[in-house]
């Protein structure tokens, strides 16, 4: 068999390390500047201000939301406030102003904050997880295998953790994959088109503040405009006259009237969710309402105290952003990971080529034919039990596109394409000695870039993570 030949040749060929350090496996990386992680982010998000600000790709009706709020408030301050200050009190524009500022700030924070996106699994992690999953159906499946779940007992409740095929992780409890943003989001509430972003663990408090302050603002403006019109029509002139004298008030009245019910309703609903420590997603699915006929179902995350639930959701510690948008992509990341990646598929290729000889495997075998010697004997044994569907990261590109990630797969493909090239050029010089020395700053490098990031390089945008 081919592989046996390679096994015999390899130890001699690779026994002595090459005296000269090998060229960097990705020549195109040389002239290129170091890229930040947001530039290669695989989800459907857009980034502004060099990664400081994150928005969903489809910003939805955020401009409409902003426009409506600014327009209505503007009309209020211009047309209604002078009259009311004169006839009632000067506090009105002040209160209105404070509410308006709260609304705008919380809206922008909801829209531009990372909702709690979980970064996708590294190839090694994905391979490790795949190893642990049993698949008795065998190797011939070309379609997606049945959904994988893991069960965990939380607070005497059985919770099913689902495997996310896009992110290649078992989703933590309360995490859901948003198809609009193509990300797994922790404590996923819902994707709100009005704010143009997902609402999740990190920005739920901003969202709640936004809808509560907006309901106050809307109610306040509605009340003030009604008072204004009432006062104007009091002098025996009638409502029509009042409306003619201040036409803007009519527009404000209409907007406020229609929005106050929905916003108040939404605030009420979310107050209920906060008090019971539920998410919209869980409420809609009826995860804890005993729908499935199981009487013992209850929310395992609730503290069974309204105050404690409210405090934990709204005043709890602010978790950090896990995606490290402004960190630099380690330029020798592919170098670092390629020896590890190559080990696994090479070992698998031993068995797979003996048993299957499928096209994809031959492809990866041709990329790394000389690497089998580097694998310790124990490793192929362990890997022998693994599934043939465990494909090395560059290979599943067709698989990825079938999952429907079209435009967004480009940056990710690009990234994994680099890994492919890394494999191709490094398999001749598999001795990782020089490569790993190149990669020596990696753990510290990416870490220090994180530290720099958190040290408020630009304090203004520090919270918009």
């Amino acid at each position, binding site marked *: 068999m081919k592989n046996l030949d390679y096994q015999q040749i390899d130890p001699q060929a690779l026994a002595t390390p090459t005296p000269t350090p090998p060229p960097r496996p990705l020549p195109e990386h040389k002239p290129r500047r170091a890229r930040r992680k947001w530039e290669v982010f695989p989800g459907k998000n857009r980034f502004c201000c060099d990664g400081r600000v994150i928005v969903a790709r489809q910003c939805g009706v955020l401009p409409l939301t902003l426009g409506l709020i600014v327009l209505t408030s503007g009309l209020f301050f211009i047309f209604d406030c002078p009259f009311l200050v004169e006839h009632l009190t000067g506090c009105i524009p002040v209160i209105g102003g404070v509410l308006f500022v709260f609304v705008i700030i919380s809206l922008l924070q909801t829209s531009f904050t990372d909702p709690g996106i979980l970064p996708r699994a590294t190839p090694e992690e994905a391979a490790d997880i795949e190893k642990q999953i049993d698949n008795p159906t065998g190797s011939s499946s070309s379609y997606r295998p049945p959904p994988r779940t893991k069960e965990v007992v939380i607070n005497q409740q059985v919770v099913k953790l689902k495997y996310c095929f896009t992110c290649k992780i078992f989703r933590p409890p309360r995490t859901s994959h948003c198809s609009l943003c193509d990300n797994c989001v922790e404590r996923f509430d819902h994707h709100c088109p009005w704010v143009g972003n997902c609402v999740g663990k990190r920005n739920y408090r901003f969202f709640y503040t936004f809808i509560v302050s907006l309901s106050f603002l809307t109610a306040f403006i509605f009340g003030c405009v009604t008072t204004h019109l009432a006062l104007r029509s009091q002098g025996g002139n009638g409502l029509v006259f009042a409306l003619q004298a201040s036409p803007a008030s009519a527009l404000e009245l209409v907007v406020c009237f229609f929005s106050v019910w929905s916003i108040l309703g939404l605030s009420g609903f979310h107050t209920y969710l906060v008090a019971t420590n539920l998410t919209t997603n869980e409420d809609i699915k009826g995860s804890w309402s005993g729908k499935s006929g199981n009487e013992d179902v209850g929310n395992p995350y609730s503290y069974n105290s309204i105050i404690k639930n409210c405090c934990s959701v709204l005043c709890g510690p602010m978790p950090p952003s896990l995606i490290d948008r402004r960190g630099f992509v380690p330029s020798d990341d592919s170098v670092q990971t390629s*020896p590890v990646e190559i080990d696994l598929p090479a070992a698998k290729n031993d068995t797979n080529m003996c048993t299957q000889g499928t096209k994809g495997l031959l492809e990866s075998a041709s990329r790394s034919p000389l690497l089998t010697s580097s694998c310790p004997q124990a490793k192929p044994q362990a890997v022998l039990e693994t599934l043939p569907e465990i494909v090395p990261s560059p290979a599943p590109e067709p698989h990825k596109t079938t999952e429907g990630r079209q435009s967004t797969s480009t940056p990710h493909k690009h990234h994994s394409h680099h890994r492919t090239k890394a494999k191709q050029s490094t398999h001749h010089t598999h001795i990782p000695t020089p490569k790993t020395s190149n990669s020596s700053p990696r753990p510290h490098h990416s870490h220090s870039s994180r530290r720099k990031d958190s040290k408020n390089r630009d304090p203004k945008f520090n919270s918009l993570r």
Partner: protein
Amino acid sequence: MALKILQDLRQAAVTSKVFVQRDYTSGTICKFQTKFPAELESRMDKQQFEETIQTLNNLYAEAEKLGGRSYLEGCLACLTAYTIFLCMETHYEKVLKKIAKYIQEQNEKIYAPLGLLLTDPIERGLRVVEITIFEDRSIGSR
């Protein structure tokens, strides 16, 4: 001395990575499984490993603790429309720095001499504790 060990490590061949997964039995808080991975059995002491993971778990619990301090921070933030996050480092971030220091210390003192390297979970999205097993080629892997 520790630095030299780390540098030597990186010149060795990387053979595999072990992933310590999250433990969700206490809910969504950040906690890692203390089960000793089989791959490390020949490499290190089980007690030591469990101690490291337990300390990490305790540190994360401290970061996510709901207590007077976090409520105060939360209320203050709410009153200032969360603009306070622009100026102040949150308690969680402070603890993350502590964790990073602890991991570095553990690597230098315990793991590097054994040919292992712990990766800070924050670099893996708090999903796993990644332990890289280095194998020195000169020893003869096979």
